[in-house]
């Protein structure tokens, strides 16, 4: 998931032997072979993957913030425990993904530095605020749900380390989705105030969740190349449609209204038809003008700055230990 702002560099025009290599590379992909870190790969493929994986990793890390916002206020000890475990899982996802990116020759520190100076993208969804407890349920249900739609196909991505990371991550995301839905079930079956809380959260998260799949196919420039490389297997609109088809009946089961007056079931296609998405909001959030862009980056920077002396201390201590081990060996 979380790769909506992707803009893949175009493959460079290449001399003849380079072209042969490209053809062989494409033939391997067409044969569904996995590309591994030591294999030759076109520079554009490498760069596209680095950007996509880094963006995904950053999204996991920034995504810890809106949900972490409710750890101290979770309404029962069981919910608190599940939420801590979830936020921690997301951090773990960030870790596997940074490791997958490192197999492409870029250090985690470099990627994090790009995030902190505001040059790297992360999913726009995490720039929305978590205002009530129902937001925690809704994020699990919709945001993790959308993540699963996006990520299941990535388990078959052509790049081996990324595909393997996704297999592990997808298992946990579906767990998160179920836990989120379970919070919603409890709220929807609770008091009038709890039901109102659940409806309000759905109202606020529905459209941003649809935007998680990225621009409509007609405006998405780089889908074709990524599909040829099997970095992407379905278009943004295809995935969005799947998500809507899966989610609307879940909302109905909860007795909640999807905040789209034009939403209707189309008998002939067997799909839901949805109203227009406000892409101006999406672009504003991507540009940094979402409700919480500043707060999210500020929190990441503050943690990084506050941790500087700690990381320096750990490095200094490790250096002292290494030096005394060398001395012991020399003596």
């Amino acid at each position, binding site marked *: 998931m979380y790769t909506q702002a992707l803009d893949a560099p175009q493959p460079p025009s290449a001399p003849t032997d380079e072209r042969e290599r490209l053809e062989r590379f494409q033939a391997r992909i067409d044969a569904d072979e996995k590309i591994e870190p030591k294999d030759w790969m076109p520079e554009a493929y490498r760069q596209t993957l680095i950007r996509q994986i880094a963006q995904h990793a950053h999204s996991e*890390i920034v995504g810890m913030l809106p949900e972490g916002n409710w750890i101290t206020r979770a309404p029962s000890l*069981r919910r608190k*425990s599940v939420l801590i475990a979830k936020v921690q899982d997301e951090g773990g996802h960030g870790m596997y993904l940074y490791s997958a990116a490192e197999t492409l020759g870029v250090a985690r520190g470099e990627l994090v530095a790009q995030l902190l100076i505001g040059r790297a993208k992360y999913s726009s969804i995490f720039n929305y605020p978590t205002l009530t407890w129902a937001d925690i349920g809704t994020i699990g249900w919709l945001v993790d749900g959308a993540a699963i739609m996006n990520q299941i196909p990535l388990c078959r991505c052509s790049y081996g380390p990324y595909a393997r990371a996704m297999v592990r991550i997808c298992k946990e995301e579906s767990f998160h989705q179920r836990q989120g839905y379970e919070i919603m079930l409890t709220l929807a079956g609770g008091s009038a105030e709890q039901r109102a809380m659940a409806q309000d959260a759905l109202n606020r998260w529905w459209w941003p969740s649809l935007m998680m799949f990225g621009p409509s196919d007609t405006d998405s420039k780089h889908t074709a190349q990524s599909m040829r490389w099997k970095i992407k297997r379905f278009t943004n609109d295809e995935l969005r449609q799947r998500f809507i088809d899966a989610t609307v009946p879940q909302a109905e089961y909860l007795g909640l209204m999807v905040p789209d007056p034009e939403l209707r079931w189309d008998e002939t296609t067997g799909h839901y038809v949805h109203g227009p998405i406000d892409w101006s909001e999406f672009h504003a959030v991507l540009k940094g003008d979402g409700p919480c862009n500043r707060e999210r980056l500020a929190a990441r920077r503050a943690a990084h700055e506050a941790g500087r002396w700690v990381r320096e201390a750990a490095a200094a201590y490790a250096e002292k230990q290494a030096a005394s081990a060398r001395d012991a060996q020399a003596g």
Partner: protein
Amino acid sequence: MSPAAEPARAPASVEDRFEYVLRLGDTSLIAAQRLGALLGHGPALEEDLALGNIALDLLGQARLLLALAGRIEGRGRDEDALAFLRDAGQFRNMALAEQPDGDFAETIVRQCLLDAWRLETYESLAGSQDRELADIAEKALKECRYHWRFSAGWLVRLGDGTAESHARTCAALEKLWRFTDELLSADALDARMAVCGIGPAPALIRERWETRVSAALAEAKLERPAHRHYPWHGKRGVHTEHLGHLLAEMQFLPRAYPGVSW
């Protein structure tokens, strides 16, 4: 001295057992609440995840202990009723656990001093006459050993890292040391629990804690702060100002929407 080796003695009162288990449960709960707030804000991703793990372990211990306290009390209060519907004066956690996180040095020093106490206490409690309490302690021991390795490992790295980390860690120790006496000084309840074979012998815990913490301080090249008088008795409900704020945040939802389930 192992409580199991003692001769037969008078059984502990329900009130005593309830209060004693609350001390343990509340100390874990409040520490978990502090650590949970840090998740996503740690000095590096690895530490974030480790502190998250520790928070989860402590919360798990707290839930078992509070549920046990509720059963002992026998008035129908479950873990959530005890966690969310008591005011500060009814909490029985050690005041050290409620101290806020200033910088990472304060977090590590607080955890380290508490982890050493919890590890030694649970080691003893694993042989408690109270089978349920003994089972909880037994199960928690593995977690407590890992918590101590983590916090003591960081104490050493910070104490023996850079000049800045050393200075910050000294300051944190200076600030938090005064809360350690409460961990180690037995009051009448601790003494009664030891006599009836439920709780550990306080002198033993003090001695083992001193040994453990002194070794870590020495390895970290840190001086042990001077003894200070302490007016806080969190375990008897006399807390610092911090606990009220912590509870206001933690208890907000069940207080604002009473009587519903979540």
